[in-house]
């Protein structure tokens, strides 16, 4: 091809991926989508801190590495990955460095859930992919979504048929091997009308290393369906993690999400929820627990695009040492979205002098008959609570850790999968050093 790509890093990146050969697709829709995304990348560039939406998140260090695609997805001792499996029966889908691993995956279900890898799309998955993939996560103005769409070499499509309740959680495990490679995993979840499902997306590192994950998940919540989505990011301490979740919530449907940002050197999570149908509801909760020189950036956008919608959001950050937390929470209430009820809270805890937090709640309300509230706080641990604990014999450090743990615990408690919640509690206990 002779076109000039504007951003030379992207040019080199695309070039090197081309050399490795493009994965063949069985579905022509995917090939078209991919080609469109590729041509769109030509006029995009990596964002810089001069871009409003990236003001606080400097990703220029990404340019230091031209992350190649993992050639073979293999891990020494794959069996040892079992420690990251959940205790409950699950529908487990495992990716290693962006490649789907059927051998590690397994469905504990009566067969009512339909799962297809994007490289082998058939039946209903093929038609749902054509209907939704790339429709919810828009790549026109988002270079990372465009890159994921163009370069994804694997992904998964999950369909929950109408009126079906999946009782076991769907656990999607994205493992990074620690090699200096990029993973572009893609996930599409379609819950048809009155379907119910819990989905856990977990990003874990097999070992330390500088890697890049650029993930996109699209979720379609059909009429009166319920989706509970838990997202746990605990990548390696030097990793880049950039992810986009785009969710469409239909009439009287309900979408819950809990998002935990724990790992990575730099992480950016863009979450977009469109309450598209009348009476659609969502509850969006998040916790970033960061230390050292980590940066965790969460951007959420809740679009009240229909009347009688309800949204609840509680986002917390615990920032220790020289870490930097960023939260931007936008809530849009469109002109005809009367009787919208939206509430957003953002509470941030700074544990050291050098810790930094930038928070930007934004309400944009264009309807008049609505209930909207938001609030944000940035602070240290409460002195009176500390004294109360100390007066009961708790050493100051233990008291601090207990209060920190409690602050984060409010979000952890919203993880409805018991073994995962327990594991997260233990993780936070270790991080906050209470025994």
């Amino acid at each position, binding site marked *: 091809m002779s076109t000039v790509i504007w951003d030379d890093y992207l040019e080199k990146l695309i070039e090197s991926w081309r050399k490795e050969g493009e994965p063949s697709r069985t579905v022509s829709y995917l090939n078209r989508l991919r080609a469109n995304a590729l041509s769109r990348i030509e006029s995009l560039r990596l964002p810089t801190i001069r871009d409003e939406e990236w003001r606080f998140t400097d990703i220029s260090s990404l340019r230091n590495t031209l992350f190649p695609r993992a050639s073979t997805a293999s891990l020494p001792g794959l069996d040892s990955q079992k420690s990251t499996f959940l205790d409950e029966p699950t529908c487990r889908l495992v990716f290693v460095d962006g490649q789907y691993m059927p051998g590690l995956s397994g469905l504990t279900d009566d067969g009512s859930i339909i799962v297809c890898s994007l490289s082998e799309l058939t039946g209903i998955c093929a038609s749902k992919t054509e209907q939704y993939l790339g429709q919810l996560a828009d790549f026109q103005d988002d270079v990372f979504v465009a890159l994921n769409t163009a370069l994804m070499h694997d992904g998964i499509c999950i369909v929950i048929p109408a009126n079906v309740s999946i009782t076991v959680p769907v656990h999607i495990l994205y493992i990074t091997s620690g090699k200096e490679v990029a993973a572009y995993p893609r996930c599409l979840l379609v819950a048809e009308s009155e379907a119910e499902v819990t989905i856990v997306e977990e990003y874990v590192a097999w070992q330390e290393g500088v890697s890049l994950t650029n993930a996109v998940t699209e979720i379609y919540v059909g009429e009166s369906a319920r989706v509970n989505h838990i997202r746990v990011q605990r990548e390696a301490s030097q990793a880049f993690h950039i992810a986009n979740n785009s969710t469409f919530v239909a009439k009287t449907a309900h979408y819950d999400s809990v998002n935990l940002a724990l790992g990575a050197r730099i992480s950016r999570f863009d979450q977009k929820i469109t309450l598209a149908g009348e009476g659609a509801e969502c509850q969006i909760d998040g916790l970033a627990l960061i230390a050292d020189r980590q940066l965790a950036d969460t951007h959420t956008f809740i679009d009240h695009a229909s009347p009688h919608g309800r949204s609840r959001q509680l986002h917390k950050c615990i920032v220790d040492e020289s870490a930097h937390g960023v939260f931007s929470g936008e809530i849009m209430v469109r002109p005809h979205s009367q009787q919208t009820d939206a509430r957003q809270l953002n509470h941030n805890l700074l544990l050291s002098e050098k810790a930094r937090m930038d928070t930007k709640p934004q309400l944009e309300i264009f309807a008049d008959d609505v209930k909207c509230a938001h609030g944000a706080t940035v602070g240290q641990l409460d002195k009176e*609570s500390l004294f109360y604990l*100390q*007066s009961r014999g708790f050493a100051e450090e233990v008291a601090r850790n207990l209060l920190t743990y409690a*602050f984060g615990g*409010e979000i952890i408690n919203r993880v409805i999968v018991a073994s995962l919640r327990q594991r997260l509690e233990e993780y936070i206990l270790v991080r906050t050093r209470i025994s």
Partner: protein
Amino acid sequence: MINANSKILLEVHDLHATVSGAEILKGVDITVRSGEIHAIMGLNGSGKSTFAKVLAGHPSYEVTRGTLLFDGQDLSALAPEERARAGIFLAFQYPVEIPGVANNQFLRLAYNTVQGQRGEEELDPLEFDDFVREKMKLLKMNPDFLDRSVNEGFSGGEKKRNEILQMALLEPRLALLDETDSGLDIDALRIVANGVNQLSNKDNALILVTHYQRLLDYIVPDYVHVMEAGRIIRTSGKELAQALETHGYDWIHTNEQITGALP
């Protein structure tokens, strides 16, 4: 119970303390021996809670003059947790709510910390559960309070009972109950007072801060002190509380004969 030979637990002399630059305590003197029960009364804002917090080591309060000895040891060098482990307990006038920390976890950690300090056996969650339920019976507390966050959403009276539950678990040598009676209904007052009386013995001591004679009908003090503007201006026997209830605080300034009863 007064016994002139029993050991001095708390010795406070000419204690001055400031908070945010304002002097609140202006020369407090009080001596408490083991086995004794003291009551401190006084107008709102006279410095009773300030004294309690200074005793417990609240970091916002600075001792600027005077001595504060517990069991012969200078308290001013000790962090709040060290005072607690040494056997000082403050039942707060306004107990703090701590969302996200389960009451049972909090109680067990506090109990084990103090037990560890005394070289005694710590309890695992199961053992502790049995132990704390027994103590709760003493205070007729519903065990459901164990599973809730510390004081979160507790009613005023429930918070006060939770304070006394902590006292029962930690078995302090010196307990200061700051208006534990306010907010308690009539039945709860009797239950809590009974509990406190059962915990009281010849080796520990109690300071009750209260506005009402009512509590002192149940927990009979050996001494009653009146605090005014950061000092203890009168000390007498239990009849002083009765007299104050009848005549009001102004009466103190016009009546000097009570001072004659000073020990």
